[in-house]
Structures are given as structure tokens and as C-alpha cells.
């Protein structure tokens, strides 16, 4: 191979190396040129859905002790009403545990004397009530102020458009106030501050 051929081959290799990403992924610009535009769709207040401003449809899942957890029980007029229902979607991962530890160690104590809050850990990965119980025990949440929910068939995950680390905050009339990544917990803290007496 001549020197000229080698040079051309180098250039081709470089070209492929740099162009491959651009041609292989349609939404590459999401990160290469991130947008600060607010692209949230409009929601009809009071409609049923999973977006903030919408009403959460009632649901029933088993908790880790095989009891029924029904959302409407914890809303106005329910058998065990709360001011706010907080649902955190966990897969027991490092990030998830950092978040749930933060709720447990930082958020709960802040609001312990203000109103009633139901804190739910939604386990959407274990696949059975017994496996959820095992994960709850293994990660030290058994007996804590969390109610661990076994989303066995991921129905709640689908209904609320959940994902790892998503926190959903529902007020006493069923309106979704927050549905987003937990991040540093500031949305949860601010919302509880606004909602609790």
C-alpha cells in the first residue's frame, strides 16, 4: 500500500468515526443541542390522566403485606384520608435507594407534624407480593413509614407513566400535582410545603 493510499484510508476512517453517530440516531440532537423549550402538552384540568393537573384514576394494588391499597381510600371521603399521597417508583437500584433514603431521612422528618401524608414505594420490578416483601426487608424499609406497593403487572407503572426514580404527588381530591424524576427532592418538599397545614 502506498503512502498516498494510507493517507486516504486514514481520512476515510476518521470520516466514518465522526459521522457514524450522526447517521445512526435520529434524536441525537436531544443531547448535542439540548432544548430549554417547554414542550409540555396542554391538559384539560380535571380530566383523567397522568399529567400534573389531571385526576389520577382510582387503582388498587397489594402492599407488601398482601393488604389492598386503594387510592380512593386515601382521598377525601375515603376510609383513611390523607392530605397528600406520594408515590415513588423504585427498582431498588443505587439511585432509587438514594432517593428513597432522602425521602426517609430528610423529607419525612420535615413534615412529620404537619397533616397526613401517605408515602408509597412502588416496586414495579419484583413481580410478586412476596418478592416485593423480600426486597423491602432486604433494603431496610420493612416497618418504616413507607407503604411498599407490589405493582406486580406494572399496571400502576403504565397508568401513571412511571419509570425508575419518578415521583408522583397526588392531592386529597385525586389531582396529580407532580409527575417527574425525583432529582434532588425539591419538588416534593415544595409541594408538601404548599399542601400541608
Amino acid at each position: 500500500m502506498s503512502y498516498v493510499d494510507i493517507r486516504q484510508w486514514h481520512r476515510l476512517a476518521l470520516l466514518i468515526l465522526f459521522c457514524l453517530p450522526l447517521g445512526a440516531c435520529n434524536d441525537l440532537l436531544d443531547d448535542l443541542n439540548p432544548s430549554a423549550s417547554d414542550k409540555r402538552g396542554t391538559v384539560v384540568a380535571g380530566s383523567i390522566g397522568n399529567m400534573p393537573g389531571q385526576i389520577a384514576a382510582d387503582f388498587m394494588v397489594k402492599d407488601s403485606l398482601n393488604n389492598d391499597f386503594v387510592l380512593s381510600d386515601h382521598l377525601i371521603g375515603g376510609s383513611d384520608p390523607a392530605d397528600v399521597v406520594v408515590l415513588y417508583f423504585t427498582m431498588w437500584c443505587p439511585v432509587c435507594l438514594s432517593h428513597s433514603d432522602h425521602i426517609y431521612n430528610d423529607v419525612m422528618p420535615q413534615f412529620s407534624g404537619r397533616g397526613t401524608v401517605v408515602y408509597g414505594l412502588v416496586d414495579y420490578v419484583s413481580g410478586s407480593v412476596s418478592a416485593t416483601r423480600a426486597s423491602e426487608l432486604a433494603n431496610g424499609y420493612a416497618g418504616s413509614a413507607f407503604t411498599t406497593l407490589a405493582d406486580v403487572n406494572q399496571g400502576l407503572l403504565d397508568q401513571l407513566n412511571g419509570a425508575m426514580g419518578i415521583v408522583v404527588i397526588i392531592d386529597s381530591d385525586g389531582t396529580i400535582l407532580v409527575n417527574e424524576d425525583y432529582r434532588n427532592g425539591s419538588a416534593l418538599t415544595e409541594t408538601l410545603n404548599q399542601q400541608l397545614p
Partner: protein
Amino acid sequence: MKYKKSRVKHAEAALFVIAALGVSATAQAASCCGGGSASSLILPKFSRAMVDVSVDMEHYDDFWDNQGKMSMDPQGSDLNQYRINLGYAQRLAPRWQASATLPYVWNQNQYATLQRDTSGIGDSSVSLWYEAFDKIACVWNVNNWKDLLPAIYWGGTLTIPTGTSPYGDVADNFDITGRGAYRLDASVLIDKTIYPWNASISASYGQYMQRPVNREYGTYIEPYDKQLGDRFNTTFAFGYTYFTDTMESLTGTLSYTYLKEDQAEIDGVVDTTSGLRKESIAATLAWASEDRDWVTKLTWSHAPHRDDWGRNFPTTDIITAGVSHVLR
């Protein structure tokens, strides 16, 4: 009662961001004299270009929690990531060289009851290196103090978010292959070979660029600004080279790597749930041809399953096999 104290250690590994973290111990290239001991994609002195291809097989097994305690993955979990890394280095001037790397990532995960196999391009990088020495710093004998001078490289690397991040159109964390933010690293590599021994130390400090986020896991949200934490990475390596009668060489290297990423900020507020740390050890075997034009490498990187060897991060084993070809 502090319920965490009774934790029996049972949880999962954060498979979602790891591809982008760039913590694999790929033995990507040659040292200044060739032969394959350094851990960066660096051209040997006086070489014109180099192509490097490697394959990583990374197995996730348990993790360190936020306090640095080991926690176990759920039963039945089998978390693996495979990467093909393409690298190219080009000499720009007698003391200057540039390089670029691009990984392609496959995630193959059985996580509790979830089975997800995904793939995509990872975050790529471009680097510029300055060689702060004139002559090859590898010697056979020390005859005067100048023979003790090491090869010193100063470099800068820009990591480009070509991977798939949580802020794009993704279904969940299993799709993720990148961090979603640009990062600029300043690096130094000091390498000294007195045959048959070799030692090197490398360090880099990187800062992510702040970015706006208006989408999480495919759902548009109220926009906010996110800045990932600064990152520090250092590696100490020590090696021995055996030469055959035909001057082919086999170099064995042991190394220790320390990685730390500070806590992120969201709209200027520190995210105390973020940040990570990982310590790992690695062993590399590199075979080089007589003319040092071909180097074949095999690396095993291991993160010890012990408390306080990491924080907020999975423990992994990485097998890397690669080959690089130097063009004179």
C-alpha cells in the same frame, strides 16, 4: 429506629448510566515507546497514526449504596453490557497528537422479572495531547540522570453526548448509553520505562457543561438546568515486559484506578442523592510485534466487593480484548 441499619443488603445495580461513565479499564494503546502499557489512546513517539479496536464485556454484580456499603442485586438478576470501541489517533506535529473514540453499546439485562436488551451508540470523545519530551523515554540502562526522565503527556478531552440519555426519547433507564452532557477533561500522563520495568501515573479532572433538560424518559417536563458533578480519575500502573528472542514482547501490567464524581446541581441546587465513587484494580497482558506496529491486549478490571471501595455505583468486572495498529 433507623431502618437502614437493619438492611440485609439486597438491591440492584445501576445499569442505566454506566456505559457513559467511561470507567472501563480498556488498555487502549501503546506507551511512548510502544508495546501497550498505557491506559489512554496515545500514539508512540514518532508514530504517525494508530487505529485501535477493542471489545468490552462488563458484568454488573451488586453495588455500593450511598454510604458505601455493599448491596446485592435482586435474585435472578444478570446484568451485562458489551461495547465495541473504535479509536483513532493521528499525529499533528512532532509534539502534538489528536485522537477520537466511539463506542457502540449493547445492554443485555435480566433484572428481577424484567428482561431488556437494547443497544446504541455511546458517548464519544476527542482528545488533544502534547508530548512534553523530545526523545523516547524508554531506556535499557540508566547511565546518567537524563535517563530517568519520564515521558510526560498533557492532554485535553472533550466527551460528546452522542449516546442515549434519560433526556431523550427513551422508554426507560434500560435504553440509556450516555450521560447527556458535554464534558471537558484536563489530563496528564507520566510514563517511565526502564526495561523490563514500566510505571505510569495518569490523572484527569473533568467538568461537565450545564445543560437544559425539558424531557425525562420521553415525557416533556417543566424545563430545568442540570450540571453533573466534576469528575476526577487517576490510575497508577506498574508493568514488566518479557522479550522473546525475536524481540516480540509480552507486557504484564497491574493497575489501580480511582474515580470520583461530585454531586450534581439542579437549577443551582446541589443534588445530595447524586455523586459516585469507584475504586478498581486491573491486570493487562499486551503482546506486541517485533516492530511494535501491532499490539494485542487483554485486560481484566475488577471492582472489589467490599464496603467503601465505592459509593452509589455498581461493582463490575470488565474483560477487554483489543488490538491496535500503529502506522509509522
